[in-house]
């Protein structure tokens, strides 16, 4: 039993958003409560047993740079590490890990247990306590009340969740979890805008019934890239994944039964993602493709469950069995848990501020899937932002803001609160216009100093970070120290214009085709630079000229971000502004010109009009 007390931050939900939020608030020193239906359900991976990927891996690195827990937990539980896009440039490479479900959950629970100011409470939140429009606490089933200055709701797909398998419907969150209907009811009453989305999972397979001799093996990287800046090498046994493919027969079965699919049978109203399509989608939309790849991912080292990535579905169980068994290697497979699609409510994230606090209820924050995102990493990133800000808000501190020019976290938040979502929002590197600057390898340089100033970064990381900066600096100094004449460079095989001046090694790194060996021949001491440090210096050099150019764009963005729009600007009165745009501007109340520019349907002329008005107001103020 616990004593009824007052918390700075109450986190509702123990998924990826909730755990990261609770850990972040606790690191900030806030007294924090994490309330979850079941203590052992904290940190559960409800969908595929993997962390990271393109864009997502960047988010995990950024969470880690602020001393978050997702990256470290994934490293502890990682049973296969692969750096995606290895053949492309470093800015678009994303670390990804196959993780052992159980080990991951254990790692998360362990990290939370280490937080002194965090209390984990098992229970069902049935209602929020509000006091004059402000968050005041929560009520648990059984009538227990907990008061708190701020609350973070991370209810995932629990809100009005509806599971579909063929034409069978069950209301619920994840399979086997009871939905919090009373809570959903109360929140619906707050008058927030909601929408409906859907997502799906594939069937889970019994690995013992798979003919592995007929399955292609996909090993992890020889030199694994882990997530955390604090991690070295994998700690548990590494295993390969399997790769197999759908075939014409699979597609035929799906086609013949397509009318039985919940999605195609008209049972689902929510909008699903365009990426990560279900097997039904693949067969219908990519009808000319005769085969699709399926990754067979182990769910754990001592778990035979296999997650077949690429064949999510909402077909009836018998059809699932038939199409799965048409696949090479899966002829005799046993399905442990059927595939299903789930529909759920989300809250329009455009009703949130940059801190993820709701506009309607002071002190109430939303994070994770309820904001319309998909993916553990997107959820955790929001949890982090909400956790830091709730802790700060509870104690009267400043807002902690992330921008598009400094992090993927900033891109995520900015996209959500300004553009909203039309399908489950997933991070891609293409969403970041300053992609070349926002790399996974420099996430710590971008964010750890901020974390240190906020107080959410612990001493161990601060020290590792300081060492890295020092190594980077001395590495750069070494490479910049000596410069070489064109003749000397030609001697080691670097072809440069003979009439060019002397070049230092840092500059040579930006030339395509220059190898480490050539550099080492010119400066033998370079070989002693730590390999990871050296890679990073090379990455910076590769993008240098582009980064210089982007500086102008960043400066322009900053200028627009600094151009504040008066909160009382009367859009409806602005002649020349269409009624539709005026309505959107009125509803969204952009704080800056940059935000206004990101509103859907905004035109250059309208932007110029708004700017002209701000200037007019300024001139009038000066003239007075």
């Amino acid at each position, binding site marked *: 039993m616990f004593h009824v007390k007052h918390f700075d931050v109450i986190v509702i939900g123990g998924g990826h958003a909730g755990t990261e939020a609770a850990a972040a608030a606790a690191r900030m020193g806030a007294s924090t409560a994490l309330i979850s239906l079941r203590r052992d359900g904290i940190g559960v991976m409800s969908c595929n047993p993997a962390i990271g*990927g*393109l*864009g997502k891996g960047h988010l995990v690195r950024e969470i880690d740079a602020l001393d978050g827990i997702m990256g470290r937990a994934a490293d502890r539980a990682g049973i296969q590490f692969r750096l*995606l*896009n290895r053949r*492309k*440039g470093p*800015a*678009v490479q994303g670390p*990804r890990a196959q993780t052992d479900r159980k080990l991951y959950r254990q790692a998360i629970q362990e990290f939370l247990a280490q937080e002194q100011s965090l209390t984990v409470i098992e229970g069902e939140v049935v209602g929020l306590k509000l006091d004059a429009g402000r968050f005041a606490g929560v009520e648990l089933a059984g009538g227990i009340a907990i008061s708190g200055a701020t609350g973070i709701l991370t209810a995932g797909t629990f809100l009005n969740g509806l599971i579909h398998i063929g034409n069978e419907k069950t209301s619920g969150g994840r399979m086997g979890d009871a939905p919090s209907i009373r809570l959903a009811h109360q929140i619906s009453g707050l008058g927030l805008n909601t929408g409906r989305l859907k997502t799906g999972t594939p069937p889970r397979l019994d690995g013992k019934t798979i003919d592995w001799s007929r399955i292609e093996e996909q090993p992890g990287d020889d030199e694994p890239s882990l997530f955390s800046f604090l991690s070295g090498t994998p700690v548990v046994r590494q295993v390969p994944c399997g790769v197999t493919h759908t075939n014409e027969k699979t597609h035929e079965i799906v086609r013949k039964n397509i009318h039985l699919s919940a999605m195609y049978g008209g049972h689902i109203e929510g909008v699903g993602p365009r*990426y*990560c399509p279900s097997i039904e989608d693949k067969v219908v939309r990519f009808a000319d493709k005769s085969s*699709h*790849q399926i990754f067979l991912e182990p769910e754990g080292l001592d778990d035979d469950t296999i997650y077949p990535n*690429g064949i999510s579905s909402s077909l009836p169980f018998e059809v699932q069995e038939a199409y799965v068994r048409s696949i090479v290697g899966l002829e005799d497979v046993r399905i442990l848990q059927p595939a299903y699609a789930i529909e759920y409510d989300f809250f329009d994230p455009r009703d949130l501020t940059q801190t993820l606090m709701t506009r309607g209820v002071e002190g109430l924050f939303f994070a994770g899937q309820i904001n319309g995102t998909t993916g553990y990493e997107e959820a955790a990133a929001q949890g982090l932002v909400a956790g830091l800000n709730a802790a700060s808000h509870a104690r009267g501190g400043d807002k902690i803001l992330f921008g598009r020019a400094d992090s993927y976290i900033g891109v995520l938040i900015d996209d959500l609160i300004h553009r909203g979502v039309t399908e489950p929002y997933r991070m*891609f*590197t*293409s969403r970041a*216009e300053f*992609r*070349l600057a926002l790399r996974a390898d420099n996430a710590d340089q971008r964010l750890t100093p901020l974390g240190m100033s906020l107080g959410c970064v612990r001493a161990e990381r601060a020290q590792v970070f300081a060492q890295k900066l020092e190594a980077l600096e001395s590495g750069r100094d070494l490479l910049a120290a000596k410069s070489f004449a064109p003749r000397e460079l030609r001697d080691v095989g670097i072809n440069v214009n003979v009439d060019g001046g002397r070049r230092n090694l840092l500059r040579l790194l930006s030339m*395509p085709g220059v190898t480490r060996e050539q550099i080492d021949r010119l400066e033998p001491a370079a070989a002693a630079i730590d390999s990871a440090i050296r890679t990073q210096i090379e990455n910076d050099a*590769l*993008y240098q000229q*582009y980064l210089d*150019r*982007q500086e102008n*764009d960043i400066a*322009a963005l900053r*200028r627009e971000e600094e*151009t504040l729009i008066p909160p009382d600007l009367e859009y409806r009165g*602005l*002649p*020349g*502004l269409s009624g539709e745009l005026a309505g959107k501007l009125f509803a969204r109340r952009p704080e800056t*010109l940059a935000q206004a520019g990101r509103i859907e349907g905004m035109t*250059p*002329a309208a*932007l*110029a*009009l708004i*700017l*002209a*008005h701000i*200037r*007019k107001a300024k001139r*009038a103020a000066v*003239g007075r």
Partner: protein
Amino acid sequence: MDTIFALASARGKAGVAVIRVSGNLAIAAGQALCGDLPLPRRAALREVRLEGRLVDQALVLVFEPGASFTGEATVELQVHGGTASVRAVLQALAAQPGLRLAEPGEFSRRALENGRMDLTQIEGLADLIDAETEAQRRQAVAVMSGHLGQRAERWRADLVRASALLAAVIDFSDEDVPEEVSEEVVALLDLIEGGISRELEGAGAAERIREGFEVAIVGAPNVGKSTLLNALAGREAAITSDVAGTTRDVIEVRMEIDGLAVTLLDTAGLRDADDRVERIGIERGIDRARLADLRIFLKDGAEVLPLDPALEDIVVQAKADLHPEREGSVSGKTGAGLDGLLLRIGAVLAGRVSGSSLVIRERHRQALSEAAGSVGSARAVIVGGGPVELAAAELQASARALEIMIGKVGVEDLLDEVFSRFCIGK
């Protein structure tokens, strides 16, 4: 917001001058000076009086808010165009409470602020005001109605498609969606680059429309070049005499041919001169003639000149008055053959103009060159198998350059640039 006023028509003596008053107090100021005002959009004659003293007579027009150039209540006074009378009316307006003289470009700025015009339209307006010839006017109207912006939007849309293909390769490499896209991307980039290049090639002609063409008359001494120039210009711009080598410096005359602005150049006669000053004049003449857009070779028989006609240059025989047998010859003295010559010049220049683009400003040209340059770099990266994210960054830069041209970003700077070009009153 202040009520502002200024002379809206050109300064200097004229039959009529238009004075515009815009703002909340415009009607009150009009009433104070003219008594009762006519109904909106009706013209009426009124006496302009300050403290009972008659200042001038004016044709008065009233525009309601939302139905005027600036979007504000506006009163326009068409007064007599004498310098003193205009000054007197302006002084009378300045004496009204709450009124002040407009800053340069302020009427246009208010038109923009009140949503009466957008940025590109205002740019086009500036050119329309400056337009001297029919071709310049057509060009300005085309820009003002947003044709260049539409083209840029099309290129931008193609850039987005190419970027999307690259994004698929980058962001979905772990799924089996992406396939080989280089070919499709390169095809798109070629299309964009071709379009922008064509537009840039036409930029020269477009600039000519704005700035005018240079047409040089060249020939041996004393074939009648200056006489021809004077005849074409309709005035004695160049000194003529029968002494060879009378023209030593380059003489310029601005005129209009078939709606195009043309600067006619008279150059020193080409010969081996002993006089040092004349020699300098001849060299200078040859240089200018070479740089001109078109040359008219005036020949007296079959003499050989130290400058060869370029493609499309016009060669005519001179002194039609003395040698009526010369076919197609011209005479500045009698005017014989001049109409035909003007037609030929007009035809050549019209041919050049037909390839003109809407790129009429250095700002546009720079943005397009930048956009095309980035597309070229992206293409090189893809063809050379370089890091695909760099190609994507180039396409991003290209799209941005186009956006800057059509005013999507950098609004602040653009506003400053655009308004700094306006003089008072316009």
